[in-house]
């Protein structure tokens, strides 16, 4: 089906380069495939990334995201397809001839060198004169707040400090593109949250294009200007975090990013600007606010996020998007409550509500309730 039928992101930043058809991409990945023997790690991926983006490649293990990153760094060569950086074809260019630096998941700090020597390593390879080198190293250490640690060896640092040395080393040569392989993966939760903001701050300050590989969807949502979701070697969807969350284009993306309720059904009416889907699972007719791909009678799924569903004791006036069920489980988290509702079909629906009021008479276990949502909240998924 054509793109015109796909939901548009309301108010998508008009100035964003990816929304501007005339903008020139900084990195072009065109039909890149990488095979290891019979195994296809990356399958015909095409992707444009723009200058100063913080692009997240998000996917589970074995999704091909790391292989794609390694091809950008030059550690692997594509089996077919081309990678262009600033209009230059990178085919055959070894890692040491690319305007690209990488921060490794294991940090890969040289254990036999001091922190300062680690940061200076890349500059030394470029023959940067000593005085300038020292200055740049000092500047980098200042940036990652490790000034007093220049003489230490990597094993004398904590995990968070090592992570920052790795970042400083990768940025010391002022690369046009920085690749980060699970940059926060080895840090504990609290440190990870702090570091996320530091990383974004540094990226915004330097304006360097970042490509981050991660399996953590929350990390991707926090960091990214855009996210590319990868599954089985393919990019299943590219978009801004909000777009990916609100308008997933496939069951995989809807399930992978955040919580979702998925109702399987069949197309009953396929209009010009709306569609009606009959779902036995939901025990209701579901209205979608746009034309869906496929013909009447075709199987289709509707995804609704838990926080978009309203719950009440009274039956709403609408005839569509209304479900009835029984409260099976409640977890009260203070600010939020999670509910699990059992529908007559046996399907469980998850609902999240903010606890705005101090209800004197809150909905409780085994109480019959009605669920509803506004038509724009539902997303139809055919793939």
């Amino acid at each position, binding site marked *: 089906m054509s793109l015109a039928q796909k939901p548009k992101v309301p108010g998508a930043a008009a100035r964003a380069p990816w929304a501007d058809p005339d903008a020139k991409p900084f990195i072009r990945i065109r039909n890149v495939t990488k095979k290891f023997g019979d195994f296809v790690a990356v399958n015909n991926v095409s992707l444009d990334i723009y200058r100063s983006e913080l692009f997240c490649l998000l996917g589970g293990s074995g999704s091909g995201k790391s292989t794609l990153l390694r091809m950008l*760094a*030059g*550690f692997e060569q594509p089996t077919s397809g081309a990678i262009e950086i600033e209009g230059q074809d990178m085919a055959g260019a*070894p*890692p*040491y001839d690319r305007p*690209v*630096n*990488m921060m*490794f*998941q*294991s940090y*890969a700090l*040289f*254990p*036999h060198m001091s922190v300062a020597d680690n940061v200076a*390593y*890349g500059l030394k*390879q*470029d023959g940067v004169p000593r005085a300038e080198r020292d200055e740049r190293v000092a500047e980098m250490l200042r940036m990652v707040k490790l000034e007093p640690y220049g003489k*230490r*060896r990597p*094993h*004398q*640092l*904590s995990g968070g*400090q090592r992570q920052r040395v790795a970042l400083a*080393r*990768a940025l010391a*040569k002022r690369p046009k593109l920085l690749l980060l392989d699970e940059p926060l993966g080895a840090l504990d939760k609290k440190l990870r949250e702090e570091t996320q903001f530091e990383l974004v701050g540094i990226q915004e300050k330097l304006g360097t294009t970042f490509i981050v590989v991660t399996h953590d969807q929350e990390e991707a949502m926090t960091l990214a200007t855009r996210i590319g979701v990868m599954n089985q070697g393919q990019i299943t969807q590219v978009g801004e975090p909000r777009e990916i969350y609100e308008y997933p284009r496939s069951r995989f993306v809807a399930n992978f990013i955040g919580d979702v309720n998925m109702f399987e059904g069949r197309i009953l009416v396929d209009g010009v600007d709306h569609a009606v889907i009959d779902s036995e699972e939901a025990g209701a007719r579901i209205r979608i606010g746009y034309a869906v791909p496929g013909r009447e009678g075709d199987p289709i799924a509707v995804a609704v996020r838990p926080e978009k569903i309203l719950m009440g004791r009274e039956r709403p006036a609408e005839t569509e998007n209304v479900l009835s069920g029984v409260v099976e489980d409640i977890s009260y988290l203070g600010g939020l409550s999670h509910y699990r509702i059992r529908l007559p079909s046996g399907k469980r629906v998850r609902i999240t509500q903010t606890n705005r009021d101090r209800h004197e008479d809150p909905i409780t276990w085994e109480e019959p309730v009605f669920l509803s949502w506004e038509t724009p909240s539902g997303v139809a998924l055919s793939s």
Partner: protein
Amino acid sequence: MRSGSFLLIAASLGFLFLYAPIVSLVVYSFNDSRLVTVWGGFTTKWYGELFKDVALVNAALVSLKVAVIAATLATILGTIAGFVLSRFGRFKGRLLFTGMVTAPLVMPEVITGLSLLLLFVGLEQATGWPAGRSATTIIIAHTTFCLAYVAVVVQSRLAGFDRSLEEAAMDLGARPLKVFFSVTLPIIAPALISGWLLAFTLSLDDAVIASFVSGPGSTTLPVEILSRVRRGVSPVINALATLIIVVVAVGFLIASLLMIRAERQRRRDEQKALAGK
């Protein structure tokens, strides 16, 4: 019997078994009698005579020269072999190559020595080189069998090597050769040093292979000692052995102390890092 006293007795017997011969050797090196088995009072004259024994001193010098050169060559070649074994993944004939590299570890020395002798003789007849048996032939022979030990040591060190270190260096602009000398080599240096020391010791020790491939004027110390002992044990040999023991013990002590100090330093550093200072 209580297990505590049993362990004590077992340990004492074990140590007695290990060290009684060495202690008696050291004691008899100070024996003022030509007869090895008769105590004739204390003297240090054998040590003086030892340094006047030109043949023995020469043999020691040959041994040292052979050991240093052979260990160095074996370390270079063994490192290359170890690299191939750990880095080239699965190539055709890998198993055969592995087997061939490590075979000298289990090959009886007599066979290694004999086969090398036949090779050298054959080569000399065919090409005129090597002209007779000399220090050169011993060096070649020792390099051959020490190489296997170095290869195994280097290979096991490389097995635990984080490849992303090399990738990081390359990513930062270093070409492969530069990566090897600035990152890989310094990190595996301890394995190379222990490989070299192992090769050095093995070469210094070897009497069997050397006796096949050594010629007149190029006798190594173990070969010389062996041939003299056949004519009766001289107290000079005892003195020589004592000196060797002292050198080895002191070397071992220094190496251990250095290692303990490095380990302590490392632990202190790590604690400092954990304290977040």
